[in-house]
């Protein structure tokens, strides 16, 4: 896997697959139902004027996935492996968030921020636990995070005291749905802020470059003076921040924490988003934007299937077929075959052209 990493092309070519996927889904939906993407303004039950429609629910629903995919891209790039504990860690983060908010009698903006910082700290702690196993003990990321995957949701259950507590406050409600006066769902705004933070980090620090260097060749990165252990650890801690944001959004959206169902199976979707975004799962070069697009592809697919009256339990089967088609199109063998065919056609045209000139 790692050997292929260096060969992958960066640039726009990498975004081709997610863009093609989005285009296909858009065309398919428009043929099926021309008004599928129409956006309307509605007044919701708290009296705000908000945007509604399938497009909004796609962009809104993919928020947690997109946020996790950003962090996961970094971990994948640096370590050449994936963190499968994000769902469990998000459940823990959500539990901490809920517990602190329930502890405070009047829920003010301050308590929410405090609760978020606390759950952020806990998620970063678990992130650094995973990161330490990977960076210091040199354990494969998937194996190292299997530990938290196994026991994370139980830890969340433990924090919740064996119940599924609810939170009911206008502030958390606003985080989960709409801030009064702003028609765009709040999770979407949070995704935009996170994306901005990531792009600023890459622009003004060497983190992106170093991560790439570690992913492509660890020993040469070390010989060039990069602290490999630190870079890997940092990638996991950043994923921890993403996990806490996603967990808090998930909790605010539902108004309760259920350790079993909060962001269930999201780890698989996250890894899928990273892969659909054209990033090699073996590490090395990466594009965060690709992963974000990948997240929207997955959500768009899900919403399309829902709109076609497929029941939520059966969605997985259809999703699998589309995923397989996508990865087959994006597979190295098919790509090589395409380049060969296109090259042959060009050659043939050249020869024909030369023959004509000769005549």
């Amino acid at each position, binding site marked *: *896997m790692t050997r292929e990493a260096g060969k992958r092309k960066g640039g726009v070519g990498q975004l081709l697959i997610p863009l093609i996927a989005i285009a296909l889904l858009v065309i398919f939906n428009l043929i099926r139902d021309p008004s599928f993407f129409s956006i309307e303004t509605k007044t919701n039950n708290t009296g705000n004027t908000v945007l509604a429609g399938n497009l909004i629910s796609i962009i809104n629903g993919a928020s947690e996935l997109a946020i996790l995919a950003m962090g996961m891209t970094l971990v994948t790039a640096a370590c050449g492996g*994936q963190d499968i504990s994000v769902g469990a860690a998000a459940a823990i983060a959500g539990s901490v968030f809920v517990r602190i908010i329930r502890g405070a009698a009047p829920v003010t903006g301050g308590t929410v921020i405090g609760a978020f910082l606390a759950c952020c700290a806990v998620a970063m702690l678990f992130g650094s636990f995973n990161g330490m196993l990977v960076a210091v003990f040199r354990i494969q990321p998937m*194996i190292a995070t*299997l530990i938290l995957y196994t026991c994370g949701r139980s830890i969340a259950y433990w924090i919740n005291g064996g119940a599924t507590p609810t939170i009911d406050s206008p502030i958390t409600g606003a985080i989960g749905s709409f801030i009064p006066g702003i028609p765009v769902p709040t999770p979407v705004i949070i995704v935009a802020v996170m994306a901005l933070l990531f792009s600023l980090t890459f622009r003004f620090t060497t983190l992106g470059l170093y991560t790439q260097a570690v992913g492509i060749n660890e020993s040469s990165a070390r010989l060039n003076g990069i602290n490999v252990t630190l870079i890997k650890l940092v990638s996991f801690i950043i994923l921890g921040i993403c996990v806490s944001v996603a967990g808090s959004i998930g909790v605010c959206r539902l108004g309760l924490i259920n350790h079993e169902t909060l962001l269930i199976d999201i780890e698989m979707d996250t890894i*899928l988003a990273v892969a659909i975004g054209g990033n090699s799962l073996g590490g090395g070069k990466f594009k965060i934007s690709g992963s974000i697009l990948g997240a929207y592809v997955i959500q768009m697919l899900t919403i399309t299937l829902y709109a076609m009256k497929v029941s939520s339990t059966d969605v*997985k089967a259809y*999703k*699998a077929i589309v995923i*397989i088609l996508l990865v087959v199109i994006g597979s190295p063998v098919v790509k090589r075959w395409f380049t060969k065919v296109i090259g042959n056609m060009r050659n043939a045209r050249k020869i024909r052209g030369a023959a004509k000139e000769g005549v």
Partner: protein
Amino acid sequence: MKKRREPFTDTQLLMTITICIFVVMYVLAMIFLGGGFLRAQQIFDLLNDNAALIIVSCGLTVVMIGGGIDISVGGVTSLVVMSCVLYLNGNGNPFLSFLLALGIGLAFGILHGLLVSYLEIQPFIVTLAGMFFARGMTTILSVNPQKLAHEGLNAFRGIKIEIPWLGYIAKNGNLIPGRIELGVVMALLCVIVVFLILKFTRLGRNFYALGGNQQSALMLGINVKKTRFMTYLISGLLSGIAGFVFMMHTGAGNATNAAGAEMNAIASSIIGGTLLTGGVGNIIGTFFGTLTLTTIKKIVVTSGLKDPWWQSISTGAMLLFFIVLQSIVLSRRGKSKAKE
């Protein structure tokens, strides 16, 4: 010349550690918890309940030795259970239902193998899609739990091998013999066959070569693509068998059958000393890995930690212990080898 004893390979070392820890753990449970742990039936129960998991883990170990990963095993198992139950309830033939189980498993194995080795797609994604597909198909077949209503097979399911001298005397004075289900025989058979394949056939040695170093395997003239294809084929086939065994054990099809089996199987393989990087692993280790994983759960329940979260927290702690131990052992060996 003094004959030098051949040193332990990584595979043997990790396996030996697992077996030792399992034995120590079990003996401690016998001493401190007593009760059920003193009876042979406890081990039989462990085997009866986890026969399917053992079979699935064997397949996964083969894939992991070849340097790949297959997370579809749980999904395929549940799909096989559901389709076999539905087929049998429609007056199906039990023998054909076994063939159906094998067929579904093989189909998944072939598809995964083709996509991973001939189209060079990342195995995680391929088998993830396989898992989604299998789980989705299970619910498409039936969302509601289905009970097996085939009389012949239900009677066959009831057959248990009884071993009187390993039994115990119940409170009312009756001798209760040790009972083993037929699924366990199937599981042990699978373990032995896979062990023999890995140990004595060219194909088995090729798996290790492929996982150890793909480039060298290629230069040795091994058909890398075909070998990798075979690992997924074996895993798929074993998932099919596991599904049938699972059905024999529970006698019902359910959408949540074998939930989380893929991660349990991966954990079993890891505890048994298989490395995800490939080239290192052993079926006997995996077998004991499964037993260790399930014994710890039983110990937690018996020792009075009744809160529902303790089982998985202690499983996680044990995984941490094994994984860190393996990492330390292997890095120490790496250092001492470098000194030589």
